[in-house]
């Protein structure tokens, strides 16, 4: 094998089991790739010692025929998941020195399945952003560049470090979280596969909270089957999360092989938004044709409240964030700016510890929840949320899945949108509806823009029907035969 980082997760599983490669070799190859990709700023914390210890145990188990599902597989973890004894920052100054004394449920499951932690990935601060530019540790660079240009592009956000790490082949899988599109949009921008499962499918325990009724963990991988393998491992009931769903977890990998024959796919007319580039519209139409060629039927559906999803989201998410982030008080953990007065200490610590976008959202949320405004903003937004969820219920009475573009553009340049919060928020126009309704969605790379950047298509499914999402995602992947990869410009000597 020329380069072990070119294996897919499923290929690596097989190679490890037939002892063609050791976990040690596989992990070392990825640790070297990480070293060579420093300029991308994918990782906040690299964990080579941890990885080598886990690889040793993996090789021992492989030798004894005791391999677990992810034995020896190098994984990158978004730095929003608490990892016991390994610093967890949420890319915020306020948690720069925080070392969790406990492990998130999602990562507990990954290590119990034999996964190997290679590092904690960069993100927008507290997952609030669509470009990774709000990170206190600096932005992540997208491994992809426009043809003939060396302009620095965003990998999207908030899970930009995880997405870029998969695109640059620094790990075989990665975790993300998705509150308004934070897995699917970066997946589209980096030519990777990203899935946000149904709200409640994966435990939120130990994930630093942003907006609790919207946050959901998910995964990134290089292809749909790899993503299915990973998602199965992190899914399942957890009594430690009050909104965790107590229901069986299907074999998602098996679902990817079942095809789309006889399925009905909805094409929502309201997603044809003004200003969307023609090439994205064309790719979307192409996606529908691919599915029809494989035996599905595409029909137009209506999701009439789509245009109100983003404004509703930008009330609900900041409101929940302002409440969740009240815990950062400089008393129990996190940054403290010492003052002689306690209130001053709270205010100075929080002002120093939170970045601009986080402060902005805390302010919006506090305002929306304050006396006299609660009904007009928060309650109103929750009612609109109910209508958006009902739109999907009505559509899913007629179709099995819905096909949309993932994002309204390809990856944009660093700094291009950071001056205008609303322009930045509009990135999530196609993904945020899935969070409000709590339904699963996958982004699959489906083609390249005229400038040579990856574009993604999104498949949305019914609640707890990730199997259909994987089936349709796999059908798109198969037809698109997307095999482009970024030139490894970051490996400068």
């Amino acid at each position, binding site marked *: 094998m020329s380069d072990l980082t070119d294996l897919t997760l499923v290929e690596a599983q097989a190679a490890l089991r037939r002892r063609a490669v050791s976990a040690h070799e596989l992990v070392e190859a990825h640790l070297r790739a990480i070293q060579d990709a420093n300029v991308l700023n994918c990782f906040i914390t690299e964990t080579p010692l941890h990885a080598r210890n886990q690889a040793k145990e993996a090789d021992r188990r492989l030798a004894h025929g005791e391999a677990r599902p992810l034995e020896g597989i190098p994984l990158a973890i978004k730095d929003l998941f608490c990892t016991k004894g390994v610093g967890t920052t949420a890319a915020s100054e306020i948690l720069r020195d925080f070392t969790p004394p406990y492990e998130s449920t999602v990562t507990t499951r990954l290590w119990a399945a034999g996964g190997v932690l290679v590092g904690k990935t960069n993100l927008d601060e507290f997952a609030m952003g669509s470009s990774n530019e709000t990170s206190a540790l600096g932005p992540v660079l997208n491994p992809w560049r426009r043809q003939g240009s060396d302009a620095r592009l965003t990998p999207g956000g908030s899970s930009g470090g995880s997405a870029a790490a998969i695109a640059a082949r620094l790990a075989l899988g990665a975790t993300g979280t998705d509150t308004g599109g934070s897995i699917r949009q970066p997946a589209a921008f980096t030519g990777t596969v990203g899935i946000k499962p149904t709200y409640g499918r994966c435990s939120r325990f130990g994930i630093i909270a942003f907006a609790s009724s919207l946050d959901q963990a998910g995964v990134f991988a290089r292809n749909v089957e790899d993503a299915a393998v990973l998602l199965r491992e992190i899914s399942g009931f957890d009594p430690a999360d*009050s909104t965790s769903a107590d229901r069986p977890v299907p074999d998602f990998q098996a679902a990817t092989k079942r095809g789309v024959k006889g399925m009905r796919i909805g094409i929502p007319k309201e997603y044809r938004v003004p200003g969307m580039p023609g090439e994205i519209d064309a790719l979307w139409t192409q996606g529908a044709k691919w599915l029809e060629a494989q035996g599905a039927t595409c029909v137009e559906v209506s999701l009439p409240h789509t245009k109100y999803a983003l404004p509703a989201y930008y009330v609900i998410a900041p409101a929940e964030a302002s409440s969740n982030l009240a815990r950062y008080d400089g008393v129990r953990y996190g940054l*403290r700016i010492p003052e002689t007065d306690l209130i001053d200490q709270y205010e100075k610590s*929080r002002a120093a510890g939170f970045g601009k976008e986080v402060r902005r959202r805390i302010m919006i949320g506090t*305002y929306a929840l304050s006396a006299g405004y609660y009904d007009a903003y928060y309650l109103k937004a929750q009612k609109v949320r109910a*209508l958006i969820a009902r739109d999907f219920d009505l559509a899913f009475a007629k179709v099995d899945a819905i096909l949309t573009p993932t994002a309204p553009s390809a990856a944009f340049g660093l700094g291009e949108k950071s001056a205008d919060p609303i322009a930045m928020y509009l990135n999530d126009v196609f993904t945020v509806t899935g969070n409000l309704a709590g339904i699963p969605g996958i982004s699959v790379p489906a083609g390249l823009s005229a400038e040579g950047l990856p574009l993604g298509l999104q498949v949305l499914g019914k609640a707890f029907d990730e199997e259909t999402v994987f089936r349709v995602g796999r059908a798109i992947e198969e037809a698109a035969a997307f095999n482009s990869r970024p030139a490894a410009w970051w490996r400068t000597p």
Partner: protein
Amino acid sequence: MSIDDKTVRRVARLARLHLEPGEIPALARELSGILDWVEQLKDVNTDAVAPLASPHRMTLRMREDVVTDGDKQGDILANAPQAVEGFFAVPKVVE
């Protein structure tokens, strides 16, 4: 709908965020811009609609009223900026 400087100061106080006087006007403009954009929600008729607080309208589970965790004083204080004799320490709040 526009947010004035006074409202910014009031909300910042509620949110326990210190603001330098110089940052208030710009923040007022940004917040007004976002709230003006959010105003479009008023165009939606929601008269007979029940608010949706959580997807799937889930109800919270009940569980046995038993202790399932605890005895972790060391873990809990491990990240405290200041801990004294097993407690979190803060500036004096009563004279």
